[in-house]
């Protein structure tokens, strides 16, 4: 009898242990589940928009904030003006304190920007290179001027990714300490980082913009798609990122809902110009490739109608409104191929890699459409580092599935086709196009700048520099504990999320 009672007690204790977690849901932090971990917590080693960028945006502030629609909004700078074509003046907020209580001043701005210009930070931070920044000058405690070599129309854009670190703290510690002990002025304070598992943040009660509504946030690494979906279903995860069109419906449970946002990244097939295939250098052939692919049907079937076809290499609202999708015209494609002397078709390599959504399905479908107009395709599934190697060495020989520029900034979006540019994986080089893009990038007159941008867009579109597909949609699951609107550029701003009443 004694024995039975003893084992009953053991069972009860075991059950209590097993079910122990259940009662604690209320105190649980808001959990954001991502595929990968942050790479660093140093604001000047920001490498990707998410998760590293999302955490840095929470812990630090930039002078200018980038709205989800690309708008330039005040952040640490309350206002700014262009003194002349080469000089910008920024007026800083006077009520900002870093999380250790020290005041934020212009000296911290100069310190941070100068830090971004030295190795290893300058391989990741593009402020100096992209804006031709020459000098940062402290005018007084709350005014700073930036001097550039050339007129920098994208100054505000790059400042939005230039985060301000307190000089005293960042010069007192070494790099490896700072890598794991971030301290800024942002809406959240750092709590802990267990590499490969999670980063925890808590609301900054003294934030100049007021403490964010959600107190504790955990950025958790959950690499497996099913694990993210299951976590959403059991209310262990509040924001599950990187779902897929075919799993999105599974996110709709009593605890959560699946959402789609029209991303800003432009999915396309690059067309190698340095290829041994002369055909790819003929604009008629490139147009034929576009006419041969039924983009609307692919969007409807493969992506469940969650996106729209591209109409330019430049995102709205800066796109050239005169440009229209090519549409599906296989007969026209055959005719153009014949005109170009390829009535019998040609052999074409099609490369893809898992970096971009549904790579295999999309590459196979496009290959099928091209086969239908007489092009003999050969599919190659590449490992990401091989693919990236091909991208940076311009060594693809056919077409390759890729995404470009999840941002709203025509200067950056158009630069991919300029001669000798690092991202120019297809190897286009047309001096007239370069002149247009460079003129636009140094032109502060909005009207003539718009005309230059639209002319450059028309060249890319009409000469069919890519096989144009669609804007990369993002799929996520959001729990019923929070309200949050996803951005199109992958950054996750949990300080804009709010609790949702039950």
């Amino acid at each position: 009898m004694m024995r039975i009672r003893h084992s009953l007690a053991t069972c009860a204790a075991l059950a209590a242990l097993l079910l122990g977690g259940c009662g604690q849901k209320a105190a649980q932090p808001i959990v954001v589940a991502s595929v990968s971990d942050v790479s660093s917590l140093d604001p000047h080693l920001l490498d990707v928009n998410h998760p590293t960028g999302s955490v840095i945006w929470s812990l630090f502030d930039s002078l200018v904030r980038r709205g989800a629609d690309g708008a330039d909004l005040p952040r640490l700078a309350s206002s700014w003006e262009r003194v002349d074509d080469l000089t910008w003046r920024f007026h800083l907020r006077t009520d900002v304190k870093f999380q250790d209580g020290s005041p934020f001043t212009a000296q911290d701005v100069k310190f941070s920007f100068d830090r971004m210009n030295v190795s290893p930070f300058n391989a990741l931070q593009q402020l100096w290179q992209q804006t031709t920044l020459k000098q940062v000058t402290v005018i007084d405690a709350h005014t700073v001027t930036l001097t550039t070599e050339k007129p920098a129309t994208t100054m505000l854009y790059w400042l939005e990714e230039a985060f301000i670190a307190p000089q005293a703290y960042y010069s007192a510690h070494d790099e490896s300490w700072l890598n794991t002990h971030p301290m800024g002025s942002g809406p959240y304070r750092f709590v802990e980082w267990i590499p490969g598992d999670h980063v925890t943040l808590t609301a900054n009660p003294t934030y100049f913009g007021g403490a964010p509504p959600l107190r504790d946030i955990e950025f958790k690494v959950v690499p497996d798609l099913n694990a993210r979906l299951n976590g959403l279903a059991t209310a262990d995860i509040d924001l599950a990122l990187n779902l897929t069109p075919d799993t999105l419906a599974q996110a709709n449970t009593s605890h959560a809902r699946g959402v789609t946002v029209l991303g800003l990244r432009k999915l396309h097939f690059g067309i190698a110009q340095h290829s041994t295939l002369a055909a790819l250098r003929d604009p008629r052939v490139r147009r034929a490739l576009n006419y041969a692919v039924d983009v609307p049907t692919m969007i409807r079937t493969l992506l469940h109608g969650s996106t729209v076809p591209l109409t330019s290499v430049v995102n709205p609202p800066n796109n050239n409104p005169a440009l229209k999708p090519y549409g599906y015209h296989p007969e026209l494609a055959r005719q153009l191929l014949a005109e170009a002397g390829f009535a019998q078709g040609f052999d074409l390599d099609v490369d893809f890699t898992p970096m971009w959504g549904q790579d295999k399905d999309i590459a196979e479908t496009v290959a099928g459409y091209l086969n239908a107009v007489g092009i003999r395709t050969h599919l190659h599934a590449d490992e990401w580092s091989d693919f990236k190697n091909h991208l940076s060495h311009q060594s693809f020989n056919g077409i390759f599935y890729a995404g470009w520029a999840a941002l709203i900034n025509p200067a950056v979006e158009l630069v991919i086709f300029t001669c000798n540019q690092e991202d120019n994986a297809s190897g286009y080089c047309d001096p007239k196009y370069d002149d247009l893009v460079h003129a636009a990038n140094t032109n502060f007159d909005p009207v003539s700048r718009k005309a230059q941008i639209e002319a450059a867009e028309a060249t890319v579109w009409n000469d069919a520099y890519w096989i144009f597909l669609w804007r990369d949609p993002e799929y996520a699951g959001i729990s019923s504990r929070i309200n949050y609107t996803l951005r199109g550029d992958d950054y996750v701003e949990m300080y804009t999320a709010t609790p949702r009443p039950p």
Partner: protein
Amino acid sequence: MLSAVTNRLARAFLVLLAVSFLTFIIGHDSGDPVLLLARGDATAAQKQELRHSLGLDRPVMAQYRSYLENALQGNLGESYRQHLPVTRLIALRLPASLLLAATAFVLAMALALLSGMLCVVYRDGVLDKALAGLAVLGQVVPGFWLGLVLVLIFAVHLRLLPVSGAGGIQHLILPALTLALPTFGRMSRLVRAGILDVLGADYIRTARAKGLPERDVLLGHALKNALLPLVTQAGLELGDMVGNAFIIEIVFAWPGIGRMTVEAIQQRDFLVAQGCVLVIGTGFVLINLGVDLVYAAIDPRVRARA
């Protein structure tokens, strides 16, 4: 005995040297980490500068030599991607992996012994057949699938256990069970066959003739003698678990070294991948060493040979 151990240790060191060299060369040949580290819009000069600061522009053998020198002093370098010491990353992850492997191993062995003996006692009966079926199932069902099914049943539908991650004992149950099942399957069959094999031996007949109760015959005589092949297999199984853990750790988001290895390889974070493989390799070598020693302890013939 002592010379046998030093001999084995020397061989183990050579194996680890070979492992470190191979992982270094393979990692090195498979892609440039700078291309994955730098942002797309970094210039060639900036990439070169980064390559230089990471020491990646030196000759491969020179890089390997300094890697080895540092490794011997307990410094496995710094992660390219996360800028953290590799030893620290491993120290963060290793306990979780050891906990998972140890739990799964103990679970598998205990269940296998129990089930094997039940099968012997009730051989050819319904229970024997049912347990045989379970064992076969354990061997053939792939771990990643089983893991997902268990999560669906116990975490998503019944809500008894957490979906993933590490924390309390409740987090350990599903991954340990998933990891244990294939080992349980193989081991329980071996236990059954091993015991049945020795049951025909003369000393068992003697033991029974002495009038020993059947329980003592089974536990004291049959099991002890059937143990030797089981120890070898158990060592292999422990090695196998390390391999299976790579998948299980990903499915359950278990913060172990297997998941870290896979992620490091995907991100071309050579030094982390090398460090993990080195630690896992050391584990393998130690397991083998341990198996040999246990062998010597339980089999006088092995002891005499050594």
